[in-house]
């Protein structure tokens, strides 16, 4: 069949390009998630700090970056970031245009957005920790940082895994919007293949399947992590009579 040939690895097959694109999507999303984890932890800490200024700043961040369409943020960073870099370059005597590479611009944009979502996930997980256990930690003289590291973080991590799984999914799909920067990730490559061959269904379904493959890989990782983290919990009362 001609369509199978189009998906294959021969000279007329798009297989190799599509797989490279899926790996690019994976790389850009993983980078974005890491950036977002750092930002998210900081913002969550600010929102929980009780300090009016920090709380307000945290709220502004999460409201803006969750409330504004992702595409606009990607545009702002891709174009705005380039102007900034060029301006810095000129100040240092370099003549000409300095671009923010599309991988970095894309990962940064998706990372900033994912940070807003991760902040909410972390905050929710923190609030779900038993107050009594925090008190027990205070009572033996654990200071703030240690309480965070020894009692809060392990439990936040456990309680946050399902939420982080969701954020990963979101970032995976936000990464599709980076196609406007010309980065050859999965969505753009599917569209290019569809436009070049005019086989729209074939390539959109192939692209969709590759996204599902990435999802099932990451689901496996998140499920494993969740099982490991939940071994201290009693069997949920849900399934029983």
């Amino acid at each position, binding site marked *: 069949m001609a369509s199978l040939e189009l998906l294959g690895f021969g000279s007329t097959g798009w297989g190799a390009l599509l797989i490279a694109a899926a790996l690019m999507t994976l790389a850009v999303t993983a980078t974005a998630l890491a950036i977002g984890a750092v930002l998210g932890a900081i913002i969550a800490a600010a929102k929980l700090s009780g300090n009016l200024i920090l709380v307000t700043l945290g709220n502004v961040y999460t409201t803006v970056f969750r409330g504004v369409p992702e595409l606009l943020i990607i545009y702002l960073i891709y174009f705005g970031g380039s102007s900034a870099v060029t301006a810095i370059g000129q100040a240092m005597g370099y003549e000409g245009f300095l671009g923010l590479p599309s991988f970095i611009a894309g990962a940064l944009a998706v990372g900033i957005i994912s940070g807003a979502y991760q902040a909410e996930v972390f905050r929710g997980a923190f609030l779900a920790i038993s107050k009594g256990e925090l008190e027990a930690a205070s009572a033996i003289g654990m200071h703030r940082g240690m309480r965070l590291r020894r009692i809060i973080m392990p439990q936040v991590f456990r309680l946050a895994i399902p939420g982080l799984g969701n954020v990963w999914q979101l970032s995976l799909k936000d990464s599709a919007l980076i196609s406007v920067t010309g980065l050859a990730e999965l969505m753009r490559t599917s569209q290019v293949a569809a436009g070049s061959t005019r086989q729209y269904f074939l390539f959109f*379904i192939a692209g969709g399947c590759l996204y599902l493959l990435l999802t099932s890989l990451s689901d496996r990782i998140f499920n494993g992590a969740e099982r490991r983290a939940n071994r201290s919990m009693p069997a949920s009362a849900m399934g029983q009579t």
Partner: protein
Amino acid sequence: MDFTFIASTMLTLLKAVPTTLILFSLSIVTGGLLALVIVWMRTSGNPVLTSIAKGYIFIFRGSPLLIQMFLVFYGLGQFGFIRYSFLWPFLREPMVCAVLSLALCTAGYTAEIFRGGIRAVSPKEIEAARSIGMSGFLLVRRILAPIAFRHALPAYSTEIVLMMKSTALASLVTVWEVTGVAQRLISQTYRTMEVFLCAAIIYLVLNFIILQGMALLEYSLSRHRRAAPQALKA
């Protein structure tokens, strides 16, 4: 800044707000109901229902909405048996297809969010309910759902805001909502930043209202958790 341009852009975009709101509210309601069914299947303990629910969640969470919408709108019509069935008069309508694919997608996410809320309910409180003879729907309605909903609320408000932004994709299927109109304006004027900024302000205001509403709901549902012990802060 060209204020007359911004003002006229704003006016054009505001005219598309009702379309966005219709898409949004219809798909949230439909998707929410569908999510309840899926969560019920997912937690039923019946292996067949559970795998169907898992498969559903996997597919609709796992692939981009853009592709889903494309396949629903342009793909279904490729099948003769659909094109000549009683469904076609509905599926022929772009608005129906847009709401359908938005709802199918959000149902997958919402189901996972609700399930997370259910898992956060203390097993001890469920036991207490079972011990007085509650089970099934009564247990869900009186104990499980209120506590789980309270737990799920932050994640759910996130999902609602995401849906608001996802409506932007509906222009792919010829439903011209705010983002679609903005993109059309851009391809007429090429003033990307100005037009997008106007659109951003509209979404920001809509989402701000939603988030405030959800925060209010969250506050009113957490009376039992307020006045937390001070050790939290110290």
